[in-house]
């Protein structure tokens, strides 16, 4: 891949993402019950767990698509969504949160490309409108990002004419073109036909090799085993087990992890 990632120099020491005592309630339902997690620079972290275990919610709290009920998320040394003052967290204005979000790239389960825009327009939209990049430059960046995911030949196509795997690869390019510090993947292959899963996982594998920091919520055990540096198993809003894939997948310490791994293998 040709795009450069993680240009920040001041924050090169320490974890890229720190999650500290994160709580999230939806009404009276407690979805996250105090999660603590650190993701190091260049690390690929895979999060496993049954649906409803809170793994997607945690991912969405990292870029503040969900507002945490309590707790802190720190990305690249900066508190997300809040300003600390007088010993408390104060909500930031939406425009400030938007600026912070540009540091994280997110890939959704159902791609969520903009249907009224061509592939190229999808990819240049954020550089143009968020970073104010000139059109020629944005197109150049987009072409590079599309080439990285093998979609340069479809630049003028509308999303509705593409397969699910192609749409997801464009979605990855759309996030990558913003040169994010960390990439968040929310079940990126769960909506795909089985024969299309491979092409998306291949793109993610190559991205991992470039040293991109990645947090991936997935059920793809094969991907976790071969690409992840760290695997986390979540259940009922808490972090049950964390460690290298050789431990969490092949020799889990907890009964809950063992049962889950057995059920999806």
């Amino acid at each position, binding site marked *: 891949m040709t795009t450069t990632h993680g240009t920040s120099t001041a924050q090169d020491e320490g974890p890229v993402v720190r999650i500290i005592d994160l709580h999230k309630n939806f009404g009276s339902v407690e979805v996250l019950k105090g999660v603590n997690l650190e993701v190091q620079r260049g690390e690929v972290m895979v999060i496993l767990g049954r649906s409803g275990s809170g793994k997607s919610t945690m991912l969405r709290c990292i870029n503040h*698509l969900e507002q945490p009920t309590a707790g802190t998320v720190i990305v690249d040394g900066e508190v997300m969504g809040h300003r600390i003052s007088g010993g408390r967290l104060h909500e930031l204005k939406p*425009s400030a949160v*938007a600026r912070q979000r*540009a540091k994280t790239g997110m890939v959704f389960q159902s791609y*969520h*490309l*903009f249907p009224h825009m061509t592939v190229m327009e999808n990819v240049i939209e*954020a550089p143009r409108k*968020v970073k104010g990049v000139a059109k020629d430059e944005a197109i150049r960046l987009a072409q590079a990002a599309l080439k990285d995911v093998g979609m340069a030949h479809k630049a003028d196509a*509308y999303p509705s004419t593409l397969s699910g795997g192609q749409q997801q690869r464009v979605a990855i390019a759309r996030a990558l073109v913003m040169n994010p510090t960390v990439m968040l993947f929310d079940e990126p292959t769960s909506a795909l036909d089985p024969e299309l899963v491979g092409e998306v996982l291949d793109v993610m594998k190559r991205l991992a090799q470039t040293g991109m920091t990645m947090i991936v919520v997935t059920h793809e055990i094969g991907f976790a085993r071969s690409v992840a540096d760290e695997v986390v198993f979540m259940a009922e809003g808490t972090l049950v087990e964390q460690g290298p894939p050789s431990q969490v997948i092949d020799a889990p310490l907890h009964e809950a992890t063992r049962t889950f791994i057995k059920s999806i293998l």
Partner: protein
Amino acid sequence: MFARTSTVGTRVPAGVTPPSQIVPLRHPGRTASAIVVLLLAFGLGWSLLTNPGFGWPTVLHYLFNQKILDGLKTTLILTFSAESLGIVFGVVLAACRMSQNRVLSTVAGAYLWFFRGTPLLVQLVFWYNLSALYPRIALGIPFTHHVFWSANTNDVLSLWLVAILGLTLNESAYMAEIVRGGLLSVPRHQAEAASALGMSRFGTFTRIVLPQALRVIVPPTGNQAIGMLKSSALVSVIALADLLYSAQLIYAMNFQTIPLLVVVSLWYLVWTTVLSSIQSRIERHYGRGVHASVAPTGVQWRKAMEGVRAGVAMRATLRAGGERA
């Protein structure tokens, strides 16, 4: 060789190859109904041409009459200004209605309830008679004696202003619901994907949500514009000389009621046609990226019709072939 079965199908014994040519099912009902409708249409057309009551020479005489053309101009200006203002105000109302601010959404809801709940005709007459309720209009600080500006209500509210005000306030209530429906039709995850990219709320709205909502908003708005063209005729009750009122003035003098109503109808038809074609153009623009829901252009129509003709020809050939076999 092939035995008819008790059902409508045919039994094919093992080892026998059935024919592969297909004879399409005939539809005698379609032909019969088409003939009936064509006869009725012909009868109607014949009476249109031959009934002297339509007074076609009179129609031609008044079609480009200066008073009629002036009335048409009034109607078009009213339609254009009231519809555009109605759309702008409707968007604001829709935004208020969908706002998290309970005060704004309740007030917007009350506005819709009132303006959709009373007849436009009553509203127009009401604005026309506003001076009976408020003889003077003033701009100042409420509950004090500070007044920056004041004037007689009747001096401010000219006939034109009453007409545009009445039509706009009513129209905006309907447009607000159309806009709200359009915005709700865009899946929430679209806005989410945009904010995940770091786009501002304004950028998300103008670049991502609104263009997709417009695909849903444009067709009923076209409907509204066409409706407005005709409901603007209601301003004749406040004696503003629109197209209908101008014709009424003429037939009150010469009693050529039917021919003049034909003149009026022809002009309304011409402009509804113009508005529909503008609508389908805008629809095509916002239909980008969506399959098969775009109104076809003239060229596409011709291609489609060629396709139909080709299909018919092919079917005829097949039928001939089938009969030979």
